[in-house]
């Protein structure tokens, strides 16, 4: 295995730590690395699209899984695939979209590995209908300090659901079998509407989300006063071939996910100030059609709009940024919490490009899985913003009070005593983990910071 000392961060570029990075090329390499792990332990890392310190392990070993990336079996009839954990969703899409298959769940970027998607139990714009990633995982192979396990939700439900959302702390996933969605075109039929404020957005989503497979609202959190919470709601589903414009019908499953722009290697700190972001948001809101139905758009621009600019996270400057994402249960308390969050962010003038608001459907049995029925709000903020720590700590309280939680895949700054009550099944999860890893080999910076294991 190739090994190197590297300074690692997550996608937010904050809190770098030094680690020995090894790149396994086979499950045997993974077993060997686990057997030889140093005192400070080991954790897997995919494409490092989690924002905080989940895929870091200061002073220990990090297994970069991206070389373990073979597609083993594609069952077009049965809509299933067996892949290595280091396969990215982009790689899967390139291969499978032309064959009429698409991941059941994809996050807002396709630059994530299957292992990372399982470990965070990621969700997409269709959570209200189909649940999260692990709802569609039929089986996976898990390397643990206690040996190799072939896990299915029926045969080994404890280990399966402790790993779903378990942030790499139950073992290293090397292979997985996924159920796929059948598609007949690579285009999305998209409806767009603008909402004048937050209440308007929430009531429009409440009424019509169930009519669509995919749905999400983008909120301009910098808008104030009567515009506070103004949003653009986009919803849709895969188009049928006869809905495509004639020129596309010859190749209904054509797919080009490629990056078209590369961000320069550095941006001056403070580039994203309130004025520039406000102007950008204004332009973007005005550009969105007030109401439009049946637009046909490429799936990449619908699902992964940011993937078109490679390395866009560098726009936040050297201090990096963080993403704040929470979910609160439906009901008056949860809705009040969303409103409070948007109000505080708007009042603080957080220079954030849009926030994303979405409605979740039922959660799954994952002990640390994030989604629960409720509203989830997500936004990026530059780490250097004055008063950010206090703002976030205050929002944590609002979320906790409302019975909600923060998303570990985005988390980089909360306190352990805030996270623990948000995940009431943490102790149950710890017990299962302790059986898989009695010596505490599986460890990450996040596990240390949040006192998870």
């Amino acid at each position, binding site marked *: 295995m190739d090994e190197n000392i590297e300074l690692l961060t997550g996608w937010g570029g904050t*809190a770098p730590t030094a680690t020995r990075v090894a790149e396994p090329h086979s499950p045997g390499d993974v077993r060997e690395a686990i057997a030889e792990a140093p005192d400070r332990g080991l954790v897997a890392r995919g494409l490092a699209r989690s924002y905080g*310190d989940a895929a870091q392990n*200061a002073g220990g070993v990090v297994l970069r899984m991206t070389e373990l990336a073979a597609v083993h079996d594609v069952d077009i009839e049965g809509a299933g695939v067996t892949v290595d954990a280091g396969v990215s969703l982009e790689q899967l899409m390139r291969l499978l979209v032309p064959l009429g298959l698409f991941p059941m769940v994809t996050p807002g970027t396709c630059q994530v590995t299957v292992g990372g998607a399982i470990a965070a139990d990621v969700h997409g714009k269709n959570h209200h209908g189909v649940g999260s990633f692990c709802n569609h995982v039929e089986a996976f192979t898990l390397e643990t300090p206690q040996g190799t396990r072939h896990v299915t939700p029926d045969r080994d439900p404890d280990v399966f659901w402790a790993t779903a959302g378990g942030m790499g702390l139950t073992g290293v996933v090397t292979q997985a079998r996924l159920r796929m969605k059948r598609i007949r075109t690579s285009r999305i039929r998209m409806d767009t509407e603008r909402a004048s404020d937050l209440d308007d957005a929430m009531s429009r989503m409440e009424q019509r989300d169930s009519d669509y497979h995919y749905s999400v609202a983008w909120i301009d959190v910098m808008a104030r006063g009567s515009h506070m919470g103004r949003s653009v709601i986009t919803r849709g589903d895969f188009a049928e071939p006869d809905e495509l414009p004639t020129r596309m019908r010859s190749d209904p499953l054509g797919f080009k996910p490629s990056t078209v722009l590369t961000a320069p290697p550095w941006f001056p700190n403070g580039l994203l100030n309130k004025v520039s972001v406000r102007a950008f948001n204004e332009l973007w809101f005005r550009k969105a059609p007030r109401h439009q139905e049946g637009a046909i758009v490429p799936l990449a621009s619908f699902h992964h709009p940011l993937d078109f600019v490679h390395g866009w996270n560098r726009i936040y400057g050297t201090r990096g940024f*963080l993403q704040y994402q929470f979910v609160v249960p439906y009901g008056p308390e949860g809705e009040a919490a969303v409103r409070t969050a948007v109000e505080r962010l708007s009042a603080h003038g957080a220079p954030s490009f849009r926030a994303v608001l979405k409605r979740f459907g039922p959660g799954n049995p994952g002990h640390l899985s994030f989604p629960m029925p409720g509203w989830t709000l997500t936004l990026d903020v530059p*780490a250097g913003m004055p008063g950010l720590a206090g703002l976030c700590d205050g929002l944590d309280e609002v979320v906790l009070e409302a019975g909600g939680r923060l998303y570990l895949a985005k988390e980089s700054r909360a306190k352990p005593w805030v996270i623990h009550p948000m995940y009431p099944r943490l102790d149950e999860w710890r017990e299962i983990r302790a059986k898989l890893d009695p010596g505490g080999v599986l460890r990450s910076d996040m596990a240390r*910071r949040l006192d998870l294991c």
Partner: protein
Amino acid sequence: MQDALGSVQSILVLGGTSDIAQATALELTRGGARRFVLAGRDVAGLDANAKELLAAGASQVDTRQFDAVDTYGHESFVREAFGVLGDVDLVLVAFGVLGDQERLDHDRQAAMDLIAVNYVGAVSVLYPVVEHMKEQGHGTICVLSTVAAERARRSNYVYGSSKAGLDWFCQGLGDALVGTGVHVMIVRPGMVRTRMTEGMEDVPLTVDPEDVAAAIREGLASGREIVWVPGPIRWVMSGLRHVPRALFRRLPV
């Protein structure tokens, strides 16, 4: 672990009875720090500070004997302190003595004793600290230097030279540690109202220990390498740096 906004969880304080150190420990406790080792010579003083931190929300505060001049004991002392805390997110090097320059003008032994604490003692304890921090792959070493390290002054040149030595050592150390996950932050306060300066007249830009503490917290958040307290004193010092010696000698600084 230090988080994305620079909050730390566990701190080793060298000079646990220092007013600046205690103000900093309290400030960082408000920011979420919970585990401490306070090290120094004055056991009763350390215990009193430990109580105050526990009352402020800390969950674990140990006190340890530490003398800067006992360089033979530094390695085992550091090993034990890291053993008690597990990961150490921040080591605060706050011990130091100012001395009385009039006496230091002619007392060779007093000058050597001062240097033995401020410079030799600090360098000695930093070696094992660096080793342990490199091993854990992360951490910040925050060292109390002073504006007096910037330019030699008639009124405190023995102190100033010892701090200048430490300051330069830490600048080079910081550069040497790039890529290791260990970060060195040098703090250069002007005059601070503490036990060290008791009875001395305030000069312009004199601050309180709490101001130094706030600047350290902000420095951790922004990953600074050098922190001036108060901020504007940086510009005063950069002005003074270019004043010719013949003139500087006569300035009341």
